[in-house]
């Protein structure tokens, strides 16, 4: 009933969107895996990253510079939050951390509105990428292909960092058993700061990457947080592999939901989440609970 070209382009749409939401979720799952902190300000890091990127691009017209600067700025904000506020709450119950990050998210919404105003904004794609490219005889937006590329590169980079470097092994060990890691003489406080800053920077980076496609608007922080939470829950809490496949699954399900059963596309992503949780309560790649 559908031609090959049609299905091929829809798969590209699904994979592109899936990798985009993988990027949104990666920082959230990283912070949760290491620190046991559900960072409800994750969407705010994403939003602030996107707006900083917007200001950079509209001034310098250099998308790639924004892609570097926004994560640095937001990473610095993350550092201040982690060392100044969050660190004091590690010994308290988890709800306290949740309330803190939730409060920060509210503040971020108002601060962004105060600085950048309520109007809808958009980041221009990098020069030469606002047109289309021929993919197997199909005209396809170049920037979306670039997002697929960026998503894969970052996924590989994160995989390499986690599996093949010393920092990665410390983080993996920390996910498994924090006390033991600190018992081995590793400064867990420093690792926590590092992971939080990295997670914030990753959120900001995804904000800049998503800017040309999803746009900058009031409420983008909570929309993003919800998508990221769904991806993380579907993929398995705390695993990057889970976020990757969770993102792809949701992206493709969302796209084909819109194609095949548009009436239900709004809650299809939630339906996928429910089914995954029924079959595997810890998510696709979550560790089974003892």
């Amino acid at each position, binding site marked *: 009933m559908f*031609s090959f070209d*049609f299905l091929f*382009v*829809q798969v590209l*749409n*699904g994979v*592109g*969107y899936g990798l985009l939401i993988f990027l949104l979720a990666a920082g959230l799952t990283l912070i*949760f895996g290491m620190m*046991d902190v*559900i960072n*409800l300000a994750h969407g705010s890091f994403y939003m602030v990253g996107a707006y900083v990127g917007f200001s950079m691009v509209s001034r310098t017209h250099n998308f790639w510079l924004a892609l570097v600067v926004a994560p640095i700025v937001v990473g610095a904000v993350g550092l201040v939050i982690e060392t100044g506020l969050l660190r004091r709450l590690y010994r308290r119950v*988890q*709800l306290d951390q*949740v309330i803190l990050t939730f409060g920060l998210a509210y503040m971020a919404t108002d601060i962004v*509105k105060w600085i950048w*105003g*309520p*109007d*809808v*904004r*958009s980041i*221009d794609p990098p020069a030469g990428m*606002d*047109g*289309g490219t021929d993919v197997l005889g199909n005209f396809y*937006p170049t*920037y*979306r292909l670039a997002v697929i590329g960026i998503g894969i590169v970052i996924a590989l980079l994160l995989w390499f960092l986690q599996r093949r470097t010393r920092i990665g092994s410390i983080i993996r060990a920390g996910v498994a058993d924090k006390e033991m890691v600190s018992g081995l003489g590793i400064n867990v406080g420093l690792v926590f700061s590092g992971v939080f800053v990295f997670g914030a920077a990753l959120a900001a980076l995804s904000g800049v990457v998503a800017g*040309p*496609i*999803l*746009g*900058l*608007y*009031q*409420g*983008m922080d*909570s*929309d993003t*947080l*919800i998508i990221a*939470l*769904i991806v993380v*829950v579907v993929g398995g*809490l*705390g695993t990057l592999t889970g976020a990757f496949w969770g993102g792809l699954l949701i992206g493709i399900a*969302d*796209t*084909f939901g*819109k*194609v095949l059963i*548009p*009436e239900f*596309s*709004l809650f299809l992503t939630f339906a996928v989440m429910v089914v995954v949780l029924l079959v595997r309560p810890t998510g696709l790649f979550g*560790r089974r*609970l003892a």
Partner: protein
Amino acid sequence: MKMKALTPLGGLLCLALAACGGSSAPASSAAAPASAAAKPSTAAASASAKPAASGAASAKPAASGAAAASGAASSSGPIKIGWVSSLTGALAPAGKPMDNGFKMYLAEVSNKAGGRDIQVITEDEASNPKDGLDKVKKLVEQDKVDILAGLILTPSTYASIDYIEKQAPRKVLLVGTNAGANDMDTTKKSDYFVRTAFSNAQANYPMGDYVFNTLKISKVYDTYSDFAAGPEKVETFAAGFKKAGGTIVGTEKPPFPSTDFAAFLTKIKASDAQATYNFEPGNDGVQFTKQYAQFIDKNKIKYLGAGDNVDESNLPAEGTSAVGAITSLHYYSTLDNPENKKFVDSYKSKFGGEVPGSFAVQGYDGARLIVDALNKTNGNADPKALMGAMLGAKWNSPRGPVSISPEFHDIVQNIYVAETQNQNGKPVNVVTKTFEQVQPYIAS
């Protein structure tokens, strides 16, 4: 260790979803289905306007006496206007300019009408129907305002009219400056509600005939954000288009809000449509328009639709991706008339060079209607007296000549067709056609 983390996470998802549900509330509003339209009503009842207006004006002393006796609204001191707009949340890009326009007009008349001072009490609807109704109640019951005006959301407006009619401790007139539900002209018409915005059918029904007979397009693919206004606007276009002889080859209803339209656009591209007719407001419109330009060649499948998609609040973000769109609306900032020139200049100088769009002019005209009516009633804000003074009112708005239909309590106005053109790298809506004095109600 992770076990205890799972429990709050579930709660958090619910919390976040609830928060989101609030901001995207228009999606959940029960929209009255667009009534099948047949032909524009020609029942312009301006002739009957004068007797109604003068009759009410002559009843003024009695009415003001009644108001004073009930001890609710004061008849001396400043007139209190309760003004509600969405200043925060997803609809702030519409609510802020509406607020600017409303207050700009009041400043132009030095906040005076009918020999009395005007005091505006502003409340935030926060892009959420519940907040809208709560703020209206607070303004009536606590602040004891004399007149209500504003509201961005259709559900807030429905609920507020209902509240005034059935629950409010005293009756107050509400001047609606944005909600466009068609049935507010007829089955939901109220003695306490008058509108300076538009009806959803008003700008879209005439496009049906225009697209078929003038643009010579016979196959159209419809798309609209799936909430109250979406079906009303696009289905009234479809009714007019089909009546003229056209065929709707498909309809896509992206959930509202959406950010990624790739799947829908790929479907449209694979169809045999000659054009699309679209309504996606706010950020949805920006992303839809940008992605449309990336996926679809507008020379092959034309981009038509409601002017909301290329409103001034969206154009800067859309940039040249909007070029080629042919849309219809009751106001474009490029309209060539002296009132509009003055309006645009003064708005730009007041608000940092920002160009006013349709929301700004709706607020501006709302304030104007209130001030003119208060001048007629010599400062009497009794709802019956005010309504009498408002029905049949005529003035030259920045959007052209307008009047308030005594039959529908709604605005009669010109509808413009504009093509978005590239002028020195900037998108500009250039008006190419005017439908004169279109009635808000399209008879079925």
